[in-house]
């Protein structure tokens, strides 16, 4: 593992060093937030879940095994929190997908605004909003596998560690998830 990360974790474990923890948050915040955003489909909940993930990581750092990748452990906390949240609101999660997509617009607009021309930006935003809406239609277990594979670009082995599922199960979830996305996104 990255020597910097190892050192920071040691400092947090030893003295509860909050400055060292802040550095860890800085290193991983974008990835954790991205997973939370793709899982929940809206920026408000994403921020809530991502912050909660770091707070839990801080509180439970003693149980983190330093022989394993820190990101795997952190992403596991994040996906578990998001899946729990999605299950709790299961009855309505597909009904409010459209609203979620609209909220996502704020998140995207901040990012896209800096580099794209206005007319390109509109197209990109609409497209990205649509893609996120379609991702939000996937059942949580397929969604987490697809997000980790195609948005975080992780290997099947790493995803299997994060989701605590056998590799073959991960593959099946990815297969089903991308078949569903093909039907929704592929022929437009």
């Amino acid at each position, binding site marked *: 593992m990255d020597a910097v990360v190892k050192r920071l974790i040691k400092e947090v474990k030893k003295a509860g060093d909050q400055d060292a923890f802040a550095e860890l*948050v800085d290193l991983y915040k974008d990835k954790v937030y991205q997973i939370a955003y793709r899982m929940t489909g809206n920026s408000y909940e994403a921020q809530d879940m991502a912050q909660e993930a770091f707070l839990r990581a801080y509180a439970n750092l003693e149980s983190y095994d330093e022989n394993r990748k820190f990101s795997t452990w952190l992403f596991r906390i994040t996906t578990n929190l998001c899946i729990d949240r999605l299950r709790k609101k299961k009855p309505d999660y597909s009904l409010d997908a459209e609203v979620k997509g609209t909220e996502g617009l704020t998140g995207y607009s901040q990012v896209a605004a800096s580099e794209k021309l206005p007319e390109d930006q509109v197209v990109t935003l609409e497209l990205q909003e649509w893609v996120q809406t379609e991702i939000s239609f996937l059942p949580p277990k397929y969604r987490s596998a697809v997000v980790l594979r195609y948005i975080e670009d992780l290997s099947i082995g790493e995803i299997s560690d994060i989701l605590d599922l056998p590799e073959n199960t991960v593959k099946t979830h*990815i297969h089903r998830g991308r078949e569903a996305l093909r039907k929704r996104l592929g022929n437009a």
Partner: protein
Amino acid sequence: MACEKKYETLLHKYLDGEIDKEERMDLFLHMETCENCARHYKEMKKALMLVQSSSHIEAPVGFTEDVVNRLPEKKKRTSWKK
């Protein structure tokens, strides 16, 4: 329909990077003549491209500060136990 299942499996193997040379040849030769499978492949590529192209989100400004402000009170550096 028999073709679809076999080639759908091959397509997933291909997308997982687990296809061997022979299977790959089989799949791509088949798609030259089978419109269904060729469309399936094209749609899949397009869907995945869309998903992958939307992967640029950053945590909001002030995220780290918000997390640190919510941490439990700082432990004392000098231990009182000793």
